[in-house]
Each structure stands twice: as structure tokens, then as C-alpha cells.
């Protein structure tokens, strides 16, 4: 592999990390709530703009702005689940899909009203120059993003597997009635799960702010990528989402390098269709296959 190829492989892994985090959120929401969240991309954009606004207007370092984004995202996620979605839990599946689509429009366009549709860039002091390791270059923001992704993912896993709340979340994902019988407040637990999913995607968004120019509908691109990743990893399979996130990051970067940027999308959607047809339970086979 040429040096350039190696470089794009590394870039792909770093971006893949961010995708993985966003997809982890989507997969969690699907796993627990059985909802295909079409507002996921928009939530990601909200995360981007929180970091942007705090950095641009108050001069806050983007990584210090992340906690604010987390709190806001948790609230948004919690409330969306607790109110509208909760009321249509037993409706046919496409209603939930539509509802999240409506939420996406609201979130996206509130951003549009506040921030205008223009591209905006947050410049971070000290990030102007790429870091060099040997003959490879790294955008500092990408490297830091990857580090943050690892930490956040660790926290999410700790939360899901080591805490009581996490155990309740996983219990209600597996067997709702059983969880209810065990005295779990399924209603709140589901809202918390949606909140955590929103936080994941919000952070992923926030991490992208120092990396790229942002605009209110940017999330739509990531929305579809997140779908691809979660389906590839198996809807509801969290490890699968992480691994697939990295895979898609690398595939995107390498296919962009070898075939040209515009075709990388094609490759990714191609993978999406193939996996939907041939292995709808995902590469690792543990995902839910949803039938209605």
C-alpha cells in the first residue's frame, strides 16, 4: 500500500470512530425501543451547533463544550421518547419512523432559523497545523476525536453493563414484560435509553465541528451512514455498530482515495443494499430482524 493509501486508511479509521459512536447511539435506540430513528442525523447536527455556538460566541474550547451538548442531547432524547413516541408505542412501526422524521425536520429547521443555512467553520487555536508522525499527517481534531470516542464508548459500556440503570435498559430490551414484572419503570428506562443514544450521536456531532464546515442539514448525510453501519453491525448489536463504524469509515476513505470521492457514497450504499438483502441480521448475526 502506498503512503497515500496508508494515510487514507488511517483517516478512515479516525472518522470511522466518530461514525461508530453515532451508530452506537442509533443501534442502542433500535435495540431497546425498536425504533428506526430518522432524527438521528438531526440530533447529531444539534450536537455540532452546540459546540459551534459555545466556541464561536463564548470562545469555549470545543472539548469543554461537549458536556453542555451532552446535557442538551440527553434532554432532547429523553423528552422525545417520553412524550410523543411513548404515546404511539403500539401503533404500526412506520408511525414511529414518521414521528422521528417530523422531529428531524423540527430540529434541523430550528437550527436553520437560528444559525442560517450558511456553511460555518469553527477555528480552534492550535489546530491550524497538522501534526506529523513520520511521513503521515494527522489533523489534531481527528486524533482527539478518536480519543474522545474511545473514552465515551467506554463510559457507555460501563453504564450499560455495570450499573443498575444499564442492566434495566438491557433487560427491557430483551423482554419488556419481564422487565415490568421485575419492577423496572420501563417507561423511564426507555426514555433514558433514548437519551443515551442521543448523547452518543450528539457527541459524535460535536467532535466533527472542529473537523468540518457545518450547516443545518449536514446531519442527513450522516443519518444514512448511521443506518448503513447499524444494519451492517446488526440492528441493536452494540459491538457490531462499533466494528462496522470503523469498517465504513475505512471503506469510505479508501474507496474515496482509489475511486474518487463521489463514488465512495455509491460503494457504501451498495454495501447497504447487499447487507439488507443477504444478511439483514448484520455481519455478526445477532441483530434483530424486524418484521411487522
Amino acid at each position, binding site marked *: 500500500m502506498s503512503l497515500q493509501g496508508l494515510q487514507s486508511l488511517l483517516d478512515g479509521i479516525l472518522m470511522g470512530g466518530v461514525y461508530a459512536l453515532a451508530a452506537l447511539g442509533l443501534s442502542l435506540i433500535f435495540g431497546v425501543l425498536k425504533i428506526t430513528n430518522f432524527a438521528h442525523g438531526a440530533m447529531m447536527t444539534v450536537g455540532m451547533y452546540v459546540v459551534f455556538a459555545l466556541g464561536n460566541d463564548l470562545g469555549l474550547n470545543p472539548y469543554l463544550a461537549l458536556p453542555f451538548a451532552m446535557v442538551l442531547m440527553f434532554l432532547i432524547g429523553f423528552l422525545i421518547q417520553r412524550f*410523543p413516541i411513548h404515546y*404511539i408505542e403500539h401503533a404500526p412501526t412506520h408511525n414511529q419512523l414518521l*414521528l422521528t422524521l417530523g422531529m428531524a425536520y423540527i430540529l434541523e*429547521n430550528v437550527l436553520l432559523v437560528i444559525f442560517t443555512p450558511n456553511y460555518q467553520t469553527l477555528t480552534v487555536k492550535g489546530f491550524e497545523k497538522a501534526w506529523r508522525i513520520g511521513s503521515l499527517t494527522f489533523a489534531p481534531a481527528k486524533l482527539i476525536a478518536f480519543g474522545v470516542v474511545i473514552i465515551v464508548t467506554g463510559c457507555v459500556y460501563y453504564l450499560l453493563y455495570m450499573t443498575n440503570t444499564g442492566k434495566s435498559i438491557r433487560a427491557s430490551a430483551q423482554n419488556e414484560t419481564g422487565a415490568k414484572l421485575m419492577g423496572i419503570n420501563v417507561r423511564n428506562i426507555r426514555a433514558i435509553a433514548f437519551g443515551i443514544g442521543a448523547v452518543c450521536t450528539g457527541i459524535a456531532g460535536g467532535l466533527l465541528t472542529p473537523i468540518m464546515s457545518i450547516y443545518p442539514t449536514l446531519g442527513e448525510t450522516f443519518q*444514512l451512514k448511521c*443506518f448503513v453501519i447499524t444494519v451492517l453491525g446488526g440492528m441493536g448489536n452494540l459491538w457490531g455498530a462499533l466494528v462496522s463504524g470503523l469498517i465504513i469509515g475505512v471503506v469510505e476513505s479508501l474507496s474515496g482515495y482509489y475511486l474518487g470521492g*463521489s*463514488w465512495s457514497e455509491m460503494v457504501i450504499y451498495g454495501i447497504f443494499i447487499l447487507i439488507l438483502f443477504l444478511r439483514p441480521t448484520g455481519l455478526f448475526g445477532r441483530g434483530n430482524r424486524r*418484521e411487522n
Partner: protein
Amino acid sequence: MKTKKVEQGTLLVLLLMAVIYPFLSDRYMLSVGISVLLMALLGQSWNIMSGYAGQFSFGHAAFFGLGAYASSILYVDHGVSPWIGMIAGMAVAALVGVLIGFLSFRYKLRGDFFALVTLAFAEILRVLFNNTKALKAATGILIPYKDVWSEFQFANDRIFYFILLAMVIAATIFIGLMSRRKFGVCLIAIKENQEAAGSLGVPVLKYKLLAMAISAAIAAMAGTFYAQYYGFIDPTVVFSAAISVEAIVPCIIGGAGTLGGPLLGALIIVPLKELSNNLFEGVNGVNMIIYGVLIVLFVVFCRDGIYGTVIRRLKGARS
């Protein structure tokens, strides 16, 4: 019987309004009328496949875009009349619809997964058209202006209006006839319970594919109209998710799986969007917020849509 009367009454009133409207409106109002009808046509198209047959599509832009591109490329590059191009576009879209359907049903995809497949196909087409030189790539196609009816062009927008109205009426009559015949009744049976329908001898796969083909063809027809009326198309517009959503929303607001629902839905949404556009002039996005709020409100509080709820009540259905 009461239901039938109400249905016929509503449709008649709508038809009357639609016929009189262009004579009372100025250029701007006429363009709003055309937007309403275009959304109604897309809505009826979606209605067949998703409202009646229950196969939830999130990618009607694929068919719309294929229709727009087929007629435009044939016209601009080969001088084929868009009327013929429209038929070609409908055939291409129907074929693609059948292909998507066949693969999805063969691999037993349902519900959200089916929606994702349709979405993915629309996106693939967008990227494909955006990057293929032979298909004019991202520059899109400008339809040269002539006032020749045989080339689907008219100086008078009223004629465009009436042609589109005729398309909407044709689609609506088709659905009306269908819903009382074997095909329509069996589609509803398939939506309600595919397995039970199959064991009563309903050719499930064939009917679902047929529904997709018809639905796709109507969306393609709308696509050709769009290209001829607006005179310009490019992949990011005609293959966009926004178009797919335009097909869904009138059905949600009006009532999916009903004859008049999508018509009423379009009649409500488009003016509302225009109104908010004018009210909040210069502020982008407010109209889309209203759109979003409407979707959420309807999905939560009025799942069957306005018209759908009325019909259900009349039939005495459980709420």
C-alpha cells in the same frame, strides 16, 4: 352506503374547486395550485403502494427522478417528445419498482427494512446521476423553452394546470375503481395479513409487485410533469429525500389507504407552507418547522389522517 355518499360528495366538491380555481387566480396562485396538484399526484402514487398495499416506501423520489430524467434526456438529447418520454419514464420506473420489490420480497424484507431499501435505492440513483457524465451529472438538464403542445410545453400555465389535474383525476379514478375490485380488496387483505391472504389464494407477490409498478409509474408521470413545468432538473432535487417525503406527507395528513386522503392532505399542506413562507419572509426554515410539527401532531393524535378518521368513524371502526 353513507360512507360512499360522503366519499363521492367530498370528491365532487374537490373536483369543482379544482376546475374553477385557475380562473380565479393570478399567476402566483396558479403556481400554488400546481404545487397542490403535484403533491396530490405524488400522494396518490404513494397511496397505492403504501396506503393500500401496506409496503411503506421511503424512496418515491427514485421513481419521480427516473420519470423526470427519462423524458428530459430523451427530449434534450434525442428530440423525442416528452409525451412519449413520459410513457418511457413510467415504464422504466415501473421496472425499477418491480426490481426493488422483487428483491425485497424475495429476501422477505418488511416494515422498516423495506423502507430503508427504498431509501437506499433513491440515494444510489441520486449519486449515480450526480456522477455520470452521460446523464449530465451534477449540472442537471435545462429544458429548452418552446410553446408547442406536442412537446408538452405551454405558454399558458393554465394548460399545465389542467393537464396535471387530468393526471390527478386519472390516478384517483384508477384507485377508486381498483378499491372496489379484486385487486384493491386483495391489496388491503395483503396489508392487513399477508399470510392469511396467501392462504385464501391471493397471489401475494404478484399483487405487491403490480402495486409497486403502478405506484412507480404514477410517480414517474409526476416527475415528467415537474421537468416540463419547471424546465430544470438536477439529481439533488428530483432524487432527494424531500421528494420522497412529499409523497408520504399528504397521505399522513389526509389519510393513507383512502381515496380522498392524499388530495385533502395536499390541499392542506401546500397552502400552509406557502402561508408560512409569506408570513416569515426572509427567514428560512419556519415552513419546514411547521411541516415537522404537523407530522408529529398527526402521527400522535390523528394517525388515520383527517379524511381517514372521518371514513373510519362512518364505517364504525374502533378508534
